């Protein structure tokens, strides 16, 4: 299946230096000063799936209040996508990295 088309739209010319990040392993161009949320949602349609029902989620408040937009970094740390800026080389995951085996 083709990934669904992202719908978040950058409307200003990005004059800033670009930053290269990966999203679930895909190499993606983003721009300095941009939030991780913009970088991810300009690339795909979701940030994560919900722990309870597995439904896709893409953040909601866009101002650090709803906590719907937490994603993972490859090192296992969680970040709030709407208030965290991209950094060149960042490896973002839209699901938890493989943890220790189930007991």
């Amino acid at each position, binding site marked *: 299946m083709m990934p*669904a088309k992202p*719908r*978040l*739209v*950058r*409307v*200003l*010319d*990005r*004059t*800033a*230096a670009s930053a290269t990040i990966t999203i679930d392993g895909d190499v993606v161009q983003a*721009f*300095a*000063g*941009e*939030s991780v949320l*913009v970088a991810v*949602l*300009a690339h795909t*349609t*979701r*940030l994560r799936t*919900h722990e*309870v*029902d597995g*439904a*896709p*989620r*893409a*953040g*909601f*408040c*866009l*101002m*650090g*209040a*709803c*906590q*719907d937009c*937490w994603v993972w970094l490859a090192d296992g*740390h*969680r970040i*709030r996508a*709407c*208030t965290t*800026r991209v950094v060149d080389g960042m490896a973002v995951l839209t699901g938890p990295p493989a943890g220790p085996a189930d007991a």
Partner: protein
Amino acid sequence: MHSTVIVGAGPAGMAAAVVLARAGEHPIIVDEAEQPGGQVWRKPAAPLQPALARILGRAAAAEHEQAHAEFASIAASVDHRPRHLAWNLQGGELFVIEHRRIRPLRYGALLLATGATDRLLPVPGWTLPGVFSLGGAQTLLKDQGALIGRRVVFAGASPLLYLAALQYKAMGATVVAVLDTTALPEKLRATPALAAAAPRVLARGLSYMARLRAGGVAIFHGVTALGIEGQDYAERVRFRCSRGAEHDLAVDAVALGFGLRAETQLLDLAGVPLAFDVDFRQWLPIVDGDGRAAPGLYAAGDGCTIGGAAAAAISGRLAAYAILADRGVAVPATEVAMLRARLARLRAFQRALSRAFAWPAHWLADARDDTVLCRCENVTVGVVRAAVAAPLGPREVNRAKALTRCGMGRCQARFCGLATAELMAHALAAPVATMGRHRSQAPVKPIPLDATLVDEDTP
């Protein structure tokens, strides 16, 4: 010990810092955002700053510039700490965290100017990707120079619907419609009060509507039965207009908002009592006219009572003068009197506005059982209703949280708390104020587990 610590570098916190700095103080001002400005004077990252005028329009951009310039002028006397979240308040210490470093701050006076975020109401489909809060839709534009989508519906009850729709339109989005859930007669009834309190602001608001109409945007008043549908993304918005006709619009994004909700968690942790405000239909701290909440503790701006940017800035100045006066410093009496009078007028305007754009709490009476109420824990309306109906069922929101997880998630009930109280009030046929409010618990927002405590004075 620091003399004054301010939480929040929005209009209220910035204005307070200016007064304190000019009086020779050295306040610390912490804000979790990267830039000062708060919600309304939000400043994008440096690479996007030149484009701000295009987004805001020239007049607003100038206002914006002026506020930032004033704050910048006192930079030498203010210890501004961006990216610092104040996450706990206990025993005269404010705990802040910056990138896994936790610092306790002792203070002589603490001013909480934490502002407000969108108030929401659950509608079917509001958890779908592509649905964002109204304030968020605008913030994305101001902060990130991005749109939530290309074909956007703005829905809810707020004057911001019209401003945000205009800004989106100006940036090239197709505004499919503005769906205002308040009926025209309600707005007309509030008009005299609005005109009396702030005629210019009213005129500006009306001009937004006129410009949208002139630009061919459909505006519906008195919208009901709002719902969003889509497979994995918002694709359609369904609603009923005031004439009773059902409508169905194709979209790729929805901005949803019903006014503002004060950020009162730190005040609550400090033990400041909150009271239910019948106009704003939410719990607001009990403070005096200048923002005194308790000895050494002050509140200003939208986190104290919903008032808008101008009122926030004035209340910030009043709170700063209160801090100085309580220390025995002489304050300019005529200026304070004038500020109080202006604040009273602006707040009266905001009250009238809250009636013109009333939050449709009655929707909760017949909300569909399968609608998600608590986004964090994915708890539906039906689950809470069933709990209420069970023997020994909950009679206030904290108990409902304990039994159903509704409001127990990461956002600490910011987005479901008020609606849960309204839902339960309807189910029990009881006044909403008796349903209580979610007690705040630290941390006010999640913090990383691998954070460590560092000494207050370790850089």
